[in-house]
């Protein structure tokens, strides 16, 4: 594959990371804790879509296809988003809201929630890997000469993610709810005394954050496959993206998601570069060649995350740039 090919793959993977990281960042800033159940919310979205798609296929499907996806995929996507949002609201109402603990307590609770979500999925569907009931596609012929091997599905993922991100931008910038959310992220007490119903805004935050996570989960299932651990495995990568972008900044989360997605997918390119560079002494070159390889793609993202936390804890977008 060429660099262009890796970039294209990176873009697809980044779209999924961005969808996850926006939701995580929103919840982080408005509900004020690191939600470790976010990854498993993605899993729930993916499996809900899986069930819906199977049901639709069972009754004969809805006819034609768009971008290689049967029409039935789109209602399944909507169901995935909706179920993720409903589950998140239910959890907020039943578990998080009645809790009388600080943000660290909420963080620990969210780990328990993550386990419960994952266990529920695993009990229902088993721990094996599954796929959406959609035939795999060949890469788009016109792009193959450039070394880019993307399918129509990948185009659909990037396109849908772009639509969702633009929609969120409009929501945040031009609607009443968006202004309230930004106010709350900035200063919850001030927002409350100004007459904003903060509880309601928080619920909407969960809806949006979990909904985007659900969409991300469905696309992740389309991009790779579905397994009960899919979301949890991605969680740390998403955290890396959020921290790189700056916690609380939605636009930072988008940028961070794009960067982290690209970095993890471009690792083979980096290792080629390292091999080509005349690094001295020799042992350093060997070490770098060993460490910068596809097995360590995620590890590289985590190390970047720690470095960002140390050097620039506010991330690339800085404080309060929502």
């Amino acid at each position, binding site marked *: 594959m060429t660099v262009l090919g890796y970039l294209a793959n990176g873009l697809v993977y980044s779209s999924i990371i961005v969808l996850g990281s926006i939701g995580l960042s929103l919840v982080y800033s408005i509900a004020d804790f690191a939600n470790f159940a976010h990854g498993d919310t993605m899993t729930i979205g993916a499996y809900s879509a899986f069930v819906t798609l199977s049901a639709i296929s069972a009754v004969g499907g809805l006819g034609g296809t768009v971008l290689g996806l049967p029409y039935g995929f789109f209602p399944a996507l909507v169901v995935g988003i909706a179920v993720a949002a409903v589950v998140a609201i239910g959890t907020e109402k039943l578990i998080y809201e009645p809790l009388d603990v600080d943000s660290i307590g909420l963080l620990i609770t969210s780990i328990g929630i993550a386990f419960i979500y994952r266990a529920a999925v695993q*009990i229902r569907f088993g721990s094996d890997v599954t796929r959406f009931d959609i035939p795999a596609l060949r890469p788009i012929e016109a792009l193959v000469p450039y070394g880019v091997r993307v399918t129509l599905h990948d185009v659909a993922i990037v396109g849908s993610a772009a639509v969702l991100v633009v929609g969120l931008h409009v929501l945040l910038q031009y609607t009443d709810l968006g202004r309230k959310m930004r106010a709350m992220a900035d200063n919850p007490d001030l927002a409350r005394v100004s007459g904003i119903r903060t509880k309601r805004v928080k619920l909407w935050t969960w809806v949006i954050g979990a909904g985007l996570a659900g969409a991300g989960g469905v696309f992740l299932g389309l991009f790779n496959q579905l397994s009960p651990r899919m979301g949890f495995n991605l969680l740390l990568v998403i955290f890396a993206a959020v921290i790189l972008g700056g916690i609380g900044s939605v636009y930072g989360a988008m940028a961070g998601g794009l960067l982290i997605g690209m970095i993890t997918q471009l690792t083979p390119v980096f290792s080629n570069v390292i091999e080509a560079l005349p690094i001295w002494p020799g042992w350093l070159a060997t070490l770098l060649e060993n460490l910068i390889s596809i097995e360590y793609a995620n590890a590289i993202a985590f190390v970047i995350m720690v470095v960002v936390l140390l050097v620039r804890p506010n991330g690339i977008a800085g404080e309060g740039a929502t």
Partner: protein
Amino acid sequence: MSLVDDPRGALADLTRPEAWVLGVSAAFALFLFVSLLTGALGPSYFLFLVGLAGMYALLSFGLNAQWGFTGLINFSVAAFFGIGAYGSALMTASSSPIAGGFNPLVGLAVALVVAFVLALLIGIPTLRLRADYLAIASLGLAEVVRLIVLNERWLTNGSGGVRGIPGFFQGWPVLSTFPEAMPGLRLEVIPGSPVLLETAFWQASLNVLLVLMFAGAVYFVLHRAHQSPWGRVLRTIRSDEDLARALGKNTYSFKMQSFILGSLIMALAGVFYTHLNLYVGPGDLDPITTFYAWVAVILGGSGSNRGALFGGIVIVTIREGTRFLNDAAALPIDPAPLRLLLIGVVIVAVMRYRPQGVLPPQRELIWPSAVDGGGTPDTPESGVREQKGGGGDE
């Protein structure tokens, strides 16, 4: 007021949760005893479970030294546990890809040294971070360690893991041949279901002896450390780091010391696990191990060592109980997700109904002489009160 001098007074002193825990533990012990006698529970397997419970208690002690004492949210428990396990396994195993074949004591020393270095490597960058960032960063670095163990086949044999590990007492004068030397016993308490005590049983009892030694030593050290002036600085950092700074304490240094102490204890748990399980694989570094330790600590009560002990036993009950349920009752559910579900429910339930844990630290924070004449003092909530009560040790 020890149980020996004045059993009735000691019993009357118990708080309600303590009484409950004592009652439930006694009932559980009775249940286990009956299962042992009737042969429903093999004695070797029972001792294996005791060893496992001791191991989780050790892990929880380690985490308690970090989270309970100092308030450090360390999500890299699995990394230290795994490094301890791999450190001793690679030094002692016959199939080790590197040296191998050393005395288990060498393995123990190497494991502790490697864990010490790893604690410095993880601690130096992360301990300056805010609490929730520390959680995320340490989880990330633990994953990095796991990926390295998984991928560096020349060092760790990759996903194959390490086999051929000897027992801890291999090469010791008497103890190495003890299990073979002991006669096989046959107890027949209930006619028709004899309980056999053979080599495996004696081997397992050696392991239990080992973990009791480890846990006893660690408990003693932690207990002393907790009551020492050093421990009081840690508790001050936990409740108000700025205050500790204002008092002229180098909080970063204290946090590092507590982090290293805890990490070494976790590595010790790993070393024991190696010689208990006789197989180590990359799966042992899975983040779930970290969360098992966390459940044990928050369930038992953060900062409470006996709570950590209780939590460790509960974890083993959940872990092995689900397996047992699956075998015996033929539940249609796979044990793995059931275990995950139980762990999740326990976390949520504790945070919802008893965020301070089942056995929160009470009198173990202060010297017994500071409590005048019997009666249960109120739960000390703040550091000030603890300091007033515990002022007699200087």
